[in-house]
């Protein structure tokens, strides 16, 4: 599903965030990405979601070379990936409901269908009661769960989550990771960047460790 070959990412300004990273994630596989702050976890996820472009090397997602993707195809590519952002990226002038509906609205999903699927997603993250609230009135953890609901609402075949449990207490954090795990059992590929080693031990899943932009450990290899 995802294949990186010799990927380097140098940000404007010269910092080399990823150095010669190669890895592969199979169809429907779930893995954790760990590493110290600044190791390049977010950068790796952004490259896969085509939010940043590689400096050198090649990324294939679903057998498509991202470097060859035409600009106008990018939106359609992104619809196939649910991304939970480290900074959530919520629209603060729209309600919780509208935030979650956004990925469906841009695809032109019919009205009734949108309402049904948005409520299902909000229910999964325990925010159904707050659908009419503006996100600013939500706690940090609730905002994070809102971001998760938006990422999963259109049932993408691949989920990328950047610290999705950073603001959650251990119990809620477990619930959310279990939610991802549940998606994975239904065939969704999942890659989660996290500092929380507890989940990794608990679920015994594949673990990729980044250090200073290089993969230093891959529990599957």
């Amino acid at each position, binding site marked *: 599903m995802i294949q990186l070959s010799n990927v380097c990412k140098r940000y404007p300004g010269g910092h080399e965030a990823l150095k010669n990273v190669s890895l592969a994630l199979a169809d429907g596989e779930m893995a954790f990405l760990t590493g110290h702050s600044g190791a390049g976890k977010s950068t790796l996820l952004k490259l896969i979601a085509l939010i940043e472009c590689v400096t050198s090397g090649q990324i294939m997602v679903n057998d498509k070379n991202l470097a060859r993707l035409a600009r106008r195809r990018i*939106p359609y590519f992104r619809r196939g990936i649910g991304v939970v952002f480290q900074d959530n*990226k919520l629209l603060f002038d729209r309600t919780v409901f509208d935030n979650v509906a*956004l990925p469906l609205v841009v695809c032109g999903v019919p009205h009734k269908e949108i309402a049904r699927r948005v409520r299902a997603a909000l229910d999964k993250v325990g925010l159904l009661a707050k659908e009419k609230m503006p996100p600013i009135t939500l706690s940090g953890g609730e905002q994070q769960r809102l971001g998760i609901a938006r990422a999963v609402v259109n049932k993408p075949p691949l989920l990328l989550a950047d610290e999705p449990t950073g603001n959650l207490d251990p119990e809620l954090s477990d619930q959310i990771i279990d939610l991802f795990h549940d998606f994975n059992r239904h065939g969704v590929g999942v890659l989660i960047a996290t500092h929380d080693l507890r989940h990794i031990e608990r679920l015994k899943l594949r673990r990729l460790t980044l250090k200073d932009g290089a993969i230093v450990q891959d529990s599957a290899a």
Partner: protein
Amino acid sequence: MTSYLLRHLQVLFYSLGQLARTPFASLVTVAVIGISLALPAGLYVLLDNMQRVSGAWDGAAQLSVFLKRDVSERAGLALAQKIRARPEIASVNYISREAALAEFKRLSGFGNALNALDGNPLPAVLAIRPASPHADAATLARLGKDLQAMGEVELVQLDLDWIKRLNAILDLARHGVWLLATVLALALTLIVGNTIRLAVLGRRTEIEIIKLVGGTDAFIRRPFLYSGLLQGLGGALCAWALLALVLALLAAPVQELAALYGSRFELRGLDVSAGLALLALGALLGWLGSRLAVGRHLRAIEPR
């Protein structure tokens, strides 16, 4: 198909809502567009009215044929008879040299001075009215040429020059209106483009996030295009209203003036088809302006 229409309708209302959120800025834009459209539209109406005036006066055209001094009264009358027989002539009035002098004395007040002359310096004149009240300039000019070719005729004077001049001025003004309209259309496009540009920049994060969840450029562009279109349309409506107001204010004085000339002339405003064309033009320019602005700025906003 219906869902497609429905979606566009939704975007339309969404854009209306967005405009209503910043009523002051929207109104200012609409007013600026309205005034810029009202200028060329007003000139157009003015020209239209002037053309009607000059059209009405074309019919009053007259030819004055001055006969050579050695043509006798009898020969002059005979000539008048001959000309009267032509189909394009309505009436020919022979004014003898004596009658001309008497009239001149009466009208000019130079009577005594003329008495000092030892002869009558004035020629006999045939005052000719063309048959058709709307004889056009070309027909009159041809008639004048025919008359000029006659042996008894010294000079043909077409009282047509001022109409020609007026028409030339109107022509020039018409070109001017188009030129002005073009320049203002350009300005309008830029005005709308600039408002939309600010709107795009103001909603930068929103655009970024829509792009992140897979919104296409077309999807993001749509509400901006609609708000440009709506602003243009609103501006055009505003221009129409402004024009109607000005014409209503001018109606009474124009009627008074017309009455002084014994005319029942009335100012005519934009007719419905011209008004609709104005609305369409406003909407088009608004759409175009936002299209140009959004196209450039959407590309610059990429999620990071």
